[in-house]
Structures are given as structure tokens and as C-alpha cells.
């Protein structure tokens, strides 16, 4: 090794020695610093420990320390308050504090604590000493000693009972709100700012024919919805355009009216949702107003209809208030009254028109106050002073509260009718009087005509009596002829009187039993031996005049007897039901009537066979009576073999 090399080595060693010295010196300094620091740290630790102790003692939340068996080692003041125990006095195990339904959850959390060394956000119920149940939130961790061995567990316990209750009630009110929206009668669509559906309801799906549950629509994009739905609406383009317009403006729109093709009418509201000045979406609301709309439309139509009726009707209409002051009149009333509208409005109707100082009108208005409606006739004078008769139909007028605020009267001028009625009455009276007079006249005439007949008869009788011996056979026969002629004359007068007496005026209208009527008649009528009368049916009961109907049967049966020339005379009485009428028939096998006389026999003084006991009035009386009973009479006959008389009587 060269000197150089040795020198180098020496120098290096020297340098090393010095460096080591320096290092030792530094080490020494450092060591001293470390000691000082450690001293400081220990002090600090003590300080911190006591600080922590203070914090734990004083924190608002409860602080609990327990050993690994769950025996509580420490409760801070808040914990003591929360649980109600004083652990200095009585030992407490946390098992005892766990709400029984939360036990399982508590055990799971405890396992977690052991395995992971902590748990967070444990929320469960606990019992307090007084048995009260409280909701608590717990964050807990394991406490280790220096050897990293777990020796205890500590936890911060926060009483969250009130929060829980608030949350629950919030939940409840939210669900209430949700069900309200779902069941709302309006269709609701809530969209967010990106036109995604946030909420909608059943009604919305119904209105827009969307066949899914409203919940399934959540999150759906609505940007194409208007295009899809437009076919439901009358004006498709306008529906789409309007939606776009509204969306663009983002301003509240209320009461847009939409007519659907199915006839429904919807009312739509648009409400933008602005939160903190930022647009967050919008709410569409659709209401079905078809009913209201139609109702108000028909109401409007009705109103127009009635207005035009009132304006154009031929009846005068007047509305008055409770003081009888005229509020409204129509054109017809102006024509009827002769006044102009200006002359009438505000005036009292009773004073203006009435002749009796408004007495009748006041009485009638009192009835209106009581809510009564009626019609009455009123004698009035119009503007020109003419006396007119009005028929007034009045009714009370009510306000919306149902109070009488006046009345409405409809006026018809019945003056012409009235005078016609008066004329008619007079005519009727006159007619009645002249009918009466005629009747009297007939009686007097017949009396005056009959009286001389009686005298002649008496005189002829005396002539015969007083000259029995003096008169020859021819004279006596002539006297007989005079008396026969007198009888004929007498019969004629009676028949004329009878005929003139048959009128509706003196007719009874009662139920008449034809069966017994005919039976009685057959007892009193003279029916010769060789004539047989048969009745084929039970004769019905009809409404009519007993005596007159008897006259009919009597006449027809008598005729059938009188004009029978056969050895075996046959008279058949029958009846047939003809709906509204009974058709009676009286058939004989007598001499018959020639066709040209079939109508003539019913005319007065048309006796075909001039005989002692036929005046020619009988059948005309029969016809008159049948007609009086709204029936008809006719005959069928064959000359030489018989006649059937038919007549109908109303049931």
C-alpha cells in the first residue's frame, strides 16, 4: 500500500471520527429534545384527557360506556336523564334497556360492533326506567387497552323520539295527499323540468284513454304526448299548438276550454312550479265540465227561448214589485193598454187601469204575497178610457232566496169574448123563453082546439038522445060519422102536441131497463089472439128517458100489430151488440111497406094507411126520440110479407 493510499485512508478515518462525534452530539441533542417533547406530550395528554372528560360529561347527547358484558360503567348526565338510572346507586345492563321487538336488531348490531370495532346510525327503541319507550340513535365503538385488547364499548346515544314522530306524521300526510291526488275528480299531471312525469292519477288515465295504472307512468317522457293525444280533441292542431305555447311561456293559465270528439268538454289549468326562482316543472289539471257547460248552455237557450216568447206572445205581460209598481211590460201589453212603456214603468197598475180604485188588484196582490197563483177577470179602462175586460193570470215572483218580490201577470183582453158571451147568454135566454112559449102555445092551442070537439060531441050526443025516434037510420049513421071524425081530430091534436113536446129540454137521462120496459108494455098493449110476440134476447139496459123510450116501443109494436093481415101474426123483438150501440129490431110478418115509402114513413103527416087510429105522426115521433138518444132508425120491408124496423140506441 502506497503512502498516498495510507494518507488517504488516514484522512478518511479522521473525517469519519469527526462525523461520528458530530452525530453523537446531534443524537444527544435530539434525545434531550425528545424527552422534553415527551414530557410536554404527557402534560398535553393529561390536559386533553380532562378536557375530554369534561366534554363527555357536558355534551348534550347521552354518552354511555359499558363493559363487554353490557354492564354499564358510565352514564353521563344526559344519559342518566335519558334512561332515568343512577348507576352509582344501581347497576344497569343494556340488555334490560332494549325494546323487546328490536332485540334481534340490537344483537346484530352488537356483533357488528365486535367484529368491526364500531357501528353507526343504529336506530331503535329503548325502555327508560319508568317504562317509557324512546327512539334513540346510537353511534358506538370498542375501547381497547394498550395491548389492543377490547376492554369496553362506548356510545353516543341521541334521543330521536320527536323526530321519529314528526317523520311518521309527515309520512302519513304524504300518503293522504297521494291518495287524494289519485282519487281526485280532476285529471292531474305533474311533470318535472324535463317533461318527465312525476305524478299523475287515475282520472288522467281515464280522460286520455291511457290503459295503464297511473303509477306506471312515472318517469315517462311527455314531450310527444300532445301529438299522441290530439286525436281525442275536436281541434287537433290547436290542442298541440296551445300546449306548446303554454309550455314556452311558463306562465299560469287557468280555464282553457277543450272540446273532445266524444262530446266532453274539459277545462285545463297550467301551473308552472318555480322553486327558488328556478323552473322545476309544471302541473296540468283537467276538469270535466261537460255537465256544467251543457247546463249553462241549455240555461242560456231556455232564457232566450222564453225571452222571445215573452216578447212575441200575444198576451200582455206585466211584472210589478210588492208596491204594485210596474217594473216590466211586453209589447203586447202596450197594445192592450194603449200606453207607452215610459208611461207605465214605475206607475201603480191598480191606479192606472182599474175602475174599482184598485180594490180587486190589491186583493189579488195579497194573494201573491201568500204565494198563491190564480186567474181572475178584471174590468179596466185603457188609456183611451174604453172599458175593457181582461183575464189576468197572476203568479208571485220570487228572488233567489225564495222571498216574494212582486208578481207577474199575464193579461188577455177578453172584451170581445165577453160581449160574445153576453150575446150568447141573451140568445140562450131568448131561445129558452121562446121554447117555453112555444110549448105553452102548443098546449093552449091543443086545449083550444080540443074544447070545441068536446062541445060538438056533447051536442051530437044530445041531438041523438033527444031525437031517437025522429031520426032515420041514415041520419043516425051520419051522427056516428061526426063522432068518429071528432075522435080522429082529437087524436091528431094529441099527436101534434106529443111531437112538439119531444125535445132534449125535458128529457131524463137515467138507466132504463128495456127488458122490463117491453115486458110491461106487452101487458098493457092490446095484442090479438092470432098474433104472437117473441123476444129473442135479453134486452139490455140503456141510458135514456124511460117514458120516451117506452113511446118508441109502444109505437113500433102497435104498428106491427095494427098492420098485420096474416092468420098467424108474428112479431119478433131482438137486439144486437154493435160496439158503442145496441141495435134493436122489431120484425113483423104484416102487410109490408113499398120501397118508395121507406124513408117517407118517418116524416110527419105521412101515414100510409089512412085509418081511424092513425094520424101519421107516430113514426115521426119515434124517429125524433131515437135521434134524441143519438141513435138511427131505418127499416127493411117486402110488400106483403113483412117489415123489420131497426133502430140503435147509444149504450
Amino acid at each position, binding site marked *: 500500500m502506497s503512502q498516498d493510499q495510507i494518507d488517504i485512508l488516514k484522512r478518511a478515518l479522521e473525517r469519519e471520527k469527526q462525523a461520528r462525534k458530530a452525530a453523537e452530539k446531534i443524537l444527544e441533542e435530539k434525545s434531550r429534545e425528545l424527552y422534553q417533547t415527551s414530557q410536554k406530550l404527557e402534560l398535553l395528554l393529561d390536559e386533553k384527557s380532562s378536557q375530554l372528560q369534561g366534554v363527555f360529561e357536558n355534551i348534550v347527547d347521552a354518552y354511555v360506556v359499558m363493559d363487554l358484558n353490557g354492564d354499564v360503567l358510565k352514564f353521563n348526565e344526559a344519559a342518566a336523564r335519558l334512561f332515568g338510572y343512577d348507576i352509582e346507586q344501581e347497576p344497569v345492563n343494556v340488555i334490560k334497556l332494549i325494546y323487546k321487538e328490536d332485540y334481534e336488531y340490537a344483537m346484530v348490531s352488537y356483533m357488528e360492533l365486535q367484529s368491526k370495532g364500531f357501528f353507526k346510525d343504529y336506530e331503535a327503541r329503548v325502555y327508560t326506567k319508568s317504562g317509557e319507550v324512546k327512539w334513540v340513535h346510537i353511534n358506538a365503538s370498542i375501547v381497547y387497552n394498550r395491548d389492543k385488547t377490547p376492554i369496553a364499548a362506548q356510545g353516543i346515544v341521541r334521543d330521536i323520539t320527536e323526530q321519529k314522530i314528526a317523520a311518521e306524521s309527515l309520512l302519513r300526510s304524504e300518503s293522504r295527499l297521494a291518495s287524494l291526488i289519485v282519487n281526485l275528480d280532476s285529471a292531474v299531471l305533474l311533470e318535472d323540468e324535463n317533461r318527465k312525469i312525476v305524478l299523475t292519477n287515475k282520472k288522467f288515465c281515464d280522460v286520455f284513454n291511457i290503459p295503464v295504472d297511473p303509477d306506471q307512468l312515472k318517469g315517462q317522457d311527455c314531450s310527444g304526448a300532445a301529438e299522441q293525444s290530439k286525436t281525442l280533441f275536436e281541434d287537433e292542431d290547436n290542442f298541440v299548438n296551445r300546449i306548446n305555447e303554454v309550455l314556452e311561456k311558463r306562465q299560469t293559465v287557468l280555464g282553457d276550454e277543450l272540446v273532445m270528439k266524444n262530446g266532453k268538454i274539459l277545462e285545463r289549468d297550467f301551473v308552472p312550479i318555480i322553486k327558488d326562482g328556478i323552473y322545476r316543472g309544471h302541473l296540468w289539471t283537467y276538469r270535466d265540465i261537460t255537465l256544467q257547460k251543457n247546463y249553462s248552455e241549455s240555461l242560456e237557450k231556455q232564457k232566450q227561448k222564453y225571452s222571445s216568447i215573452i216578447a212575441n206572445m200575444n198576451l200582455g205581460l206585466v211584472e210589478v214589485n210588492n208596491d204594485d209598481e210596474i217594473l216590466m211590460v211586453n209589447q203586447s201589453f202596450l197594445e192592450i193598454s194603449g200606453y207607452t212603456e215610459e208611461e207605465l214603468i214605475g206607475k201603480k197598475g191598480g191606479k192606472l187601469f182599474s175602475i174599482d180604485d184598485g180594490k180587486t188588484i190589491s186583493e189579488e196582490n195579497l194573494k201573491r204575497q201568500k204565494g198563491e197563483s190564480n186567474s181572475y177577470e178584471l174590468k179596466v179602462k185603457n188609456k183611451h178610457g174604453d172599458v175593457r175586460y181582461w183575464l189576468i193570470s197572476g203568479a208571485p215572483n220570487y228572488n233567489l232566496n225564495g222571498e216574494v218580490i212582486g208578481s207577474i201577470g199575464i193579461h188577455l183582453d177578453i172584451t170581445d169574448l165577453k160581449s160574445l158571451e153576453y150575446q150568447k147568454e141573451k140568445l140562450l135566454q131568448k131561445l129558452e123563453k121562446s121554447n117555453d112559449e112555444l110549448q105553452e102555445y102548443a098546449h093552449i092551442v*091543443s086545449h083550444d082546439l080540443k074544447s070545441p070537439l*068536446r062541445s060538438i060531441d056533447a051536442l051530437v050526443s044530445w041531438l041523438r038522445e033527444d031525437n031517437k025516434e025522429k031520426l032515420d037510420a041514415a041520419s043516425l049513421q051520419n051522427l056516428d060519422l061526426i063522432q068518429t071524425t071528432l075522435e080522429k081530430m082529437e087524436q091528431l091534436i094529441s099527436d101534434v102536441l106529443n111531437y112538439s113536446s119531444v125535445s132534449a129540454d125535458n128529457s131524463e137521462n137515467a138507466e132504463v131497463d128495456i127488458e122490463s120496459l117491453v115486458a110491461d108494455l106487452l101487458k098493457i098493449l092490446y095484442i090479438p089472439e092470432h098474433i104472437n110476440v117473441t123476444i129473442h134476447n135479453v134486452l139490455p139496459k140503456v141510458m135514456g128517458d124511460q117514458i120516451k123510450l117506452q113511446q118508441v116501443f109502444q109505437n113500433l109494436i102497435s104498428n106491427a100489430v095494427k098492420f098485420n093481415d096474416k092468420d098467424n101474426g108474428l112479431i119478433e123483438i131482438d137486439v144486437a151488440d154493435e160496439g158503442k150501440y145496441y141495435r134493436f129490431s122489431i120484425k113483423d110478418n104484416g102487410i109490408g111497406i113499398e120501397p118508395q115509402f121507406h124513408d117517407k114513413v118517418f116524416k110527419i103527416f105521412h101515414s100510409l094507411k089512412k085509418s081511424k087510429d092513425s094520424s101519421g105522426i107516430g113514426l115521426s115521433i119515434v124517429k125524433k126520440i131515437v135521434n134524441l138518444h143519438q141513435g138511427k132508425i131505418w127499416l127493411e120491408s117486402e110488400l106483403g110479407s113483412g117489415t123489420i124496423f131497426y133502430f140503435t140506441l147509444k149504450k
Partner: protein
Amino acid sequence: MNKLKVLLIEDDMIEVMKLNRATSSLQLNHTIIEANNGEDALKLLEQKDKLPDIILLDLNMPKINGIEFLKILKSDSRLKYIPTIILTTSNNQRDLLECFNIGIAGYVLKPLKYEEYVSKIEKLLAYWSINELITT
């Protein structure tokens, strides 16, 4: 049989003859007093001591007619007790009703035939002659 005093009120001369002849031919002893109209009859009836037992009254007469006469008769306190029988040709129902309404003792229709008349008068007088009548 009582002998009746009959007042016949009748304007027709032959009718009066008829009654007289009938009673005489029937050989009845009744007294017939005649009045040609209602006025005459009322005069006769003023003599209250010579009142008839019955009155036969025709309806159709001039001046006071039968019904008017009947009304006057029935409103008199004494005369109303005299049975009054209507003897007429009128079978007017209205007259019949009114007469019975006012108060009559009978309503007899004059028949056409004289023989029948005699028979009716015979029965009528026979009936009233067996009746008790108010005489005072």
C-alpha cells in the same frame, strides 16, 4: 048521500050545459052554481054563509085564469078548505104539477066523448058526496 052544492067555474056555455044535463040525467040532487069566470066566482064566494061544498074549476079562462084563481082561493083562510077539482082538457104536465103544488082535491081531464064525461062526473060527485066536508 049528501046533497052537494057545486060551484062550476067555466066560461064555455056548452060545458056548463054538459054538467047540468049530466047531473039531471043522472037524477042527482046536487045544486050547481055557475060562474063564467074567476072574478064572478070570487064575488060569489064573498058570501061566506052561502059557500059551495066543492068547486069544479076550468083552467083556460079569460081574465083571471084557473091557476090564478086557485092561488087566490088557497090564500084565503076560509076558502082554502073548499075542495077544488080541476076540470080541463089540458094534460099539460106543468099545469098538473103547479095545481097540485098550490093545492087541489083532484084533476080530471074532460074526455072527448060525452058518455065518458057523464061517467066521470057521476063518479066524481059520488065520491065527494060521501066525504065529510068543512061547512062552517
